[in-house]
């Protein structure tokens, strides 16, 4: 249960910078998600903590100590790989005991700790099975037990739920969170699935092209994305561009391309400056007809596609040249048909100023 | 790409094997190439001079043209019969027999292939010769029939070689046929094709890579064979391989033997050069 720091990490492969001066602190006991598209550097960072990647510049510190020179097998980390990497020639019990065995822990204690680990992942009774007799979810739990039984300082997970189907994934998300909380171990995981990142993490870092774009709690990062990439990668966003008309009391009036006016909280904005606003689809209220609707910030448009998803409906609204996404829970209001004239409104608080 | 530390590892891992291959295969081939341009055998103490005479002999002396043709002819016969006999076996195994029977039968077909080729050829002499199995069987049926001696004949050589190399064809055709998805056949049937059409226009073309690969694997060794023709053919069924063997073991005319060897190699390479793109195009079409 340790604190892990990455300080100014740089890793280049030829011309490509996989990590471009990245720094982050993973607090003791926190469940931290590294999110980003393929090749963004998140896996490189994970492997740098593990020791498979040696940084060109920068440090990896655990509890303040630089472990850059420590080989993988001495770092006392636990890692669960994307395809679990269970040893096929060993039974479940032998797999889990492996880390204890190479440390020459006496057999009696091995047995006890293996039993405890299997109980924690709810696989009691599976000791003698071979990996190929297990389902994907069971294999993953064995991999988790194997990584945790050695009581490592850090737990690393590489796309932990990627290989599971939807139902199993939801189940495992809950399991994983529970186990992590019970054990209290600092956990860093990598994923390209933003839903997974939101569900599991205490904090998230969004990666792109070797840099951390934004880091913070899921709520913070979701509600207040820093730039277009962060807004678009974590969830969906509607982007409204325009020129700043006036600034009053820290609030700016932005003349959107297309004519409407939007207010947004924006300290330090100059009149005449270009601004980009992001509004989440679920924050937009949709009203049939072009009648006046409550709230300032307003757009008019026509319903394009309607996507019904059981408990919710998504609309694609054509507002001039732009297509705005709106998400609405099916709470009894009638579902609007394609071609209906509508107006969209949102609270000024829900518009966020984002960098390009 | 690899860094310095890795380069050392790669070198130390691959060097021994490839050094061995260099000394035993690549350098000897180069040496024999050089030898083929000499006018005297290396066994003779007098210094030798460069000449094209050996290669010229191959192209001008009718005996070598004849031998080459006979070798190619033998290759064609053996390949053809291997295909004729082997393809249906591969088809049956790949498409019709399932489960444990398939594995067991496949193993039974492949097994003789991995035993000693010389001994298998020899076993045919027991069957074909005067007093051998076939002769005895015929006499058992009709005691007055004349004795049959199939040994030391061209058909005997063909039979023996087909026996030796048949499993190659079965193996390659089997792999090719097995890769054909059943759903493709079903799709053809649903489009109204009858089985003969399905076979000729869908299955056989898709299995062509296996046929071509098997043919190459058979044709190449057969045209270079000398042991089988000698044991089963005696003076009939003479091949270029036998002539090469004579140059080295009997007449000690190594340069000539070397030249003939390389001409044979050239023929093999020609076949590969023609066959490889054929297979590639087919395989790309299948992907």
């Amino acid at each position, binding site marked *: 249960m340790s604190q892990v720091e990455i300080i100014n990490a740089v890793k280049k492969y030829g011309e490509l910078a996989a990590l471009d001066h990245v720094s982050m602190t993973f607090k003791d006991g926190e469940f931290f998600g590294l999110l980003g598209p393929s090749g963004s550097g998140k896996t490189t960072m994970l492997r740098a903590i593990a020791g498979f990647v040696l940084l060109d510049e920068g440090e990896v510190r655990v509890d303040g100590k630089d472990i850059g020179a420590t080989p993988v097998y001495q770092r006392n980390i636990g890692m669960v790989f994307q*395809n679990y990497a269970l040893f096929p020639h060993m039974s479940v019990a032998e797999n889990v005991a492996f880390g204890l065995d190479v440390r020459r822990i006496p057999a009696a204690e091995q047995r006890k700790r293996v039993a405890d680990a299997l109980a924690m992942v709810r696989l009691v009774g599976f000791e003698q099975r071979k990996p190929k007799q297990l389902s994907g979810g069971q294999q993953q739990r064995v991999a988790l037990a194997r990584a945790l039984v050695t009581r490592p300082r850090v737990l690393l997970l590489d796309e932990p739920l990627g290989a599971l189907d939807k139902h199993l994934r939801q189940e495992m998300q809950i399991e994983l969170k529970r186990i992590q909380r019970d054990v209290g171990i600092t956990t860093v995981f990598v994923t390209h699935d933003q839903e997974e990142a939101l569900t599991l993490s205490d904090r998230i870092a969004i990666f792109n092209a070797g840099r951390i774009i934004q880091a913070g709690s899921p709520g913070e990062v979701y509600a207040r994305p820093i730039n277009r990439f962060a807004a678009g990668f974590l969830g969906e966003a509607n982007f409204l561009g325009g020129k700043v008309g006036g600034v009053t009391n820290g609030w700016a009036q932005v003349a959107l391309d297309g004519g409407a006016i939007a207010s947004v909280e924006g300290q330090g904005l100059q009149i005449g400056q270009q601004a980009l606003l992001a509004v989440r689809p679920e924050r937009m209220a949709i009203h049939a007809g072009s009648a006046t609707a409550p709230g300032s910030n307003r757009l008019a448009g026509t319903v394009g596609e309607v996507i019904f998803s059981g408990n919710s409906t998504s609309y694609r609204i054509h507002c001039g040249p732009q297509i705005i996404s709106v998400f609405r829970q099916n709470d009894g209001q009638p579902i609007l048909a394609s071609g209906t004239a509508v107006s969209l409104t949102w609270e000024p608080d829900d518009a966020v100023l984002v960098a390009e | 790409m690899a860094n310095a530390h890795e380069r050392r590892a790669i070198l130390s891992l691959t060097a021994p094997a490839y050094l*061995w291959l260099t000394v035993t295969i690549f350098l000897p081939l180069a040496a024999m190439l050089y030898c083929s341009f000499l006018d005297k055998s290396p066994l003779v103490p007098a210094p030798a001079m460069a000449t094209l005479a050996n290669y010229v002999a191959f192209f001008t002396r009718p005996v070598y043209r004849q031998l080459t043709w006979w070798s190619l002819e033998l290759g064609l016969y053996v390949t053809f019969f291997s295909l004729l006999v082997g393809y249906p076996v591969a088809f049956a195994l790949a498409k019709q027999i399932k489960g444990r029977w398939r594995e067991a039968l496949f193993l039974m077909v492949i097994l003789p292939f991995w035993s000693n080729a010389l001994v298998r050829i020899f076993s045919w002499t027991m069957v074909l010769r005067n007093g051998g199995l076939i002769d005895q069987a015929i006499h058992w049926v009709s005691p007055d029939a004349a004795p049959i001696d199939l040994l030391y004949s061209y058909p005997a050589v063909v039979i023996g070689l087909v026996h030796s190399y048949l499993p190659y064809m079965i193996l390659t055709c089997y792999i090719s046929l097995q890769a054909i998805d059943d759903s493709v056949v079903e799709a053809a049937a649903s489009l109204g094709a009858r089985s003969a059409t399905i076979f000729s226009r869908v299955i056989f073309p898709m299995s062509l890579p296996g046929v071509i690969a098997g043919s190459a694997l058979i044709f190449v060794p057969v045209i270079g064979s000398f042991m089988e023709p000698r044991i089963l053919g005696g003076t009939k069924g003479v091949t270029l391989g036998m002539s090469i063997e004579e140059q080295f073991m009997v007449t000690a005319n190594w340069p000539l033997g070397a030249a003939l060897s390389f001409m044979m190699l050239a023929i093999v390479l020609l076949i590969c050069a023609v066959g490889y793109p054929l297979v590639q195009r087919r395989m790309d079409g299948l992907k």
Partner: protein
Amino acid sequence: MSAEKTMRSGGLKLGPVVLRLHLVLVLLFLYVPIIVMAALSFNRSQLYELPFTFDLVWYQSLAGDSRLIDAGINSVVIALVNTVVATVLGTMAALAFARYQFRGKSLLQLLLFPPITIPWLVIGTAMLVFFFWTGIGRGLHAILLGHVALSLPYVIVVVGARLANFPRQMEEAAATLGATPWQTFWRVTAPILAPGVVAAALFAFAVSFDQFVISYFLAPPGVTTLPVAIYAAIRKGFTPEINAISTIIILVSMGIMLITARFYRFGGER
């Protein structure tokens, strides 16, 4: 299914029954000569006459034929040494191919083709010439050199196939669990590789034990391997001992192949 019915109905003349019959006939074709030869080796008669009287006389006289016995020992010894050398060298090379990407890798892999595609006649005569010039000469050592060269591509391919299915992540997982590289190799890599390596070794043994052409050119008078000795015996004239020794060889080769198949299948986790 509709496709099968189409197969069995009018259209195609070759029904499944005919094909199965053909399969049986082919199996007969493949095995009858061998069985006949084996049967005759146990027959007391000097020629191939019936009636059949079971007798081990030819095997006994075989035991006294020192030339064939010596040749047999040579074959086995060469095959064993060949197996060790080819397996070690080939496994190392296969490891390099599986673990690393490097310039020239495709070239090296391409170079594995000549030993298997070039007719053995050409390789054998080339070795004869080169060994003569370099003073290596003929003999058991030369034969060994040749056999290893022929076995190497097979070993590399067989072990390579096994390695291709071996995810690197297992070794990484072992490292994260605290195993030193040495421990990782012994506890994880080697046990998983073992069946593939054993299969390759058995392959190499069979290739060497059955090899005729290369041995033929590289064997000096008086020292030979078993196949070459048998060939000389056949050329001299038929004696029933040849049946006996041939039967032994066939059983050994087939036995090895059966064991290899078993190993490759059960280790291969298909």
